[in-house]
């Protein structure tokens, strides 16, 4: 459905230096520097996929979304979505897509939500019957019924985001871009958004591209993740591939009855070959080890024979950490 090939986008930014004199000088002679937001990015997405598009701040996620939605033109490279080149033939193309830019609402601030919806009905020239059906569907799925007639400025952030999601789906797009839809939301609202995204992907077969910083979003939703950094694709695959592709380590967490015993234990750490101390707080000690080099049973046996502790557990590193490692190791950050 989406074919992106070698897309490059560079921004030109006027350089500003410190001091009053330099700002006067810049009136006459400006220096520019170039920021490469995307550097030969390629990927392809099939119909019905739910993609988590992640990367550190400034990685080029939003630039990609803007190029794919036809707002920005890349410097080079090709891109086709559903047979369209997004930035050419913009008006015909955008009928098939829906976009939610997180932190930016498309609703009219001082008007009831239903007014914004009716306006979108007219803008997309949605047939009355089709409009009624999709309005009922999104109202039901997102439980909007209680505040459809409330002015948008009176809504909470979570309610507003739900309305924004609904607004982006009224014209039944086949492709939906969600740019950080859960940013700033509380736990309940996040669950509602995730649940909704999963439903429209599964039942309405909408292809979804989701950019986010929230790893819980990724774990809950995305079947496939694309990690972008420094304008390049650093990883493309499923979460389980991610787990196996990053050198796997485990955490061993030990709880001691007192801090003194924990300190005594960390003092003897040099005897535990291969395990590194991560942190020690109160009576809790956290160590990292590589199960390939140091089998867990050996490590645990060694500890149980020499120390008395009150609790023990072994943890997998969270996805967040795997991704942070990819940012660091593959992107040199």
């Amino acid at each position: 459905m989406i074919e992106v090939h070698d897309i490059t986008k560079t921004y030109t930014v006027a350089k500003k230096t410190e001091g009053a004199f330099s700002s006067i000088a810049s009136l006459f002679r400006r220096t520019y520097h170039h920021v490469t937001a995307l550097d030969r990015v390629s990927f392809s997405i099939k119909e019905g996929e739910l993609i988590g598009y992640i990367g550190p701040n400034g990685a080029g996620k939003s630039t990609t979304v803007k190029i794919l939605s036809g707002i920005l033109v890349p410097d080079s490279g090709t891109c086709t979505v559903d047979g369209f080149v997004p930035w050419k033939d913009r008006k015909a193309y955008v009928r098939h897509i829906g976009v939610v830019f997180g932190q930016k609402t498309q609703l009219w601030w001082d008007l009831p939500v239903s007014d914004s919806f009716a306006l979108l009905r007219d803008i997309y020239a949605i047939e009355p019957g089709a409009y009624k059906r999709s309005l009922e569907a999104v109202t039901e799925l997102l439980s909007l019924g209680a505040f459809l007639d409330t002015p948008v400025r009176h809504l909470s952030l979570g309610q507003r985001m739900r309305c924004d999601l609904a607004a982006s789906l009224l014209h039944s797009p086949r492709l939906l871009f969600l740019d950080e839809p859960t940013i700033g939301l509380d736990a309940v609202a996040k669950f509602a958004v995730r649940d909704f995204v999963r439903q429209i992907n599964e039942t309405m077969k909408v292809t979804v591209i989701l950019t986010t910083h929230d790893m819980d979003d990724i774990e809950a939703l995305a079947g496939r993740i694309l990690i972008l950094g420094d304008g390049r694709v650093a990883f493309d695959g499923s979460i389980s591939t991610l787990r196996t592709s990053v050198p796997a380590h485990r955490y061993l967490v030990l709880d001691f009855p007192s801090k003194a015993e924990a300190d005594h234990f960390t003092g003897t750490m040099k005897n535990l070959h291969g395990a590194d101390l991560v942190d020690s707080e109160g009576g809790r000690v956290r160590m990292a080890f590589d199960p390939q080099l140091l089998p867990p049973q050996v490590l645990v046996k060694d500890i149980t024979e020499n120390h008395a502790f009150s609790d023990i557990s072994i943890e997998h590193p969270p996805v967040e950490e795997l991704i942070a490692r990819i940012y660091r190791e593959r992107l040199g950050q």
Partner: protein
Amino acid sequence: MICFISVVLRSFKNSLQYRGAAIAGMFTQVFWGLIMIMVLDAFFMNETGTAPISRVQSITYIWLGQAFLSLLPWSYDRSIQAMLYDGRIAYDFIRPCSVYWLWFARTLGWRTAAVTLRSVPLVLFAVFGMRLLGMPELAIAPPANAVQFLAFTLSMFSAAVLGTAITMMINVSMVWTVSGVGTVALVSAVVTLFSGMVIPLPLFPEWTQTLITLLPFRGLVDAPFRLYSAHIPAKYLTYTLLHQWIWIAVFLLWGKAFLRKGAKALVVQGG
């Protein structure tokens, strides 16, 4: 077209809520109108019978100017500025419509709402308030006749479109400047002077009349108001409308080209 009307209506509805601002603005305009009328009246006291516009006509001219002040393109659409500033403008570029007409409809709705809120109470004051204050001779005069009033209505409608088309130039300039304040400072001086808002245009010196007639701004205020009081006979309506619509076409084409250029320069920041 349905889309265009729908945006105009929503923008109209959205702007109607600024009733407080409209009432405050109305009081300013009442006083401003009174001062201008009194200054002009002093001028007419020493008049020798050769004035190019009569006393009653110019008093009416000034009252109408205050009533329709909000149609004057001397400000930018704040809702568009806010969207450009925080990036919500990106949504306008993912709609299957012309961005120019989306903004045009927004501005037209806002301007007509502002005029509706102010003109009705202001005209009521200019008719009855002035009589209650014991100055019936400074009250607004009724339209010269039904035909002149119809001509006034038609050219006032065109004035609203022309005013919106000129406002669009300021709106689009904000794609580069983000803040419209600088542009407005330049434009508003020209617009208020050459539309007739400062001094009725017929009172300008003889040698400026050709230039004033050619400029677009007389189509905003001067021409419709003079049709109202029959200073321009209704049979010349065609010329007035032609003048207005030629300039409307110029500003539409110019504004559209300007926005096309702007859209290329526009980079919606942040995510």
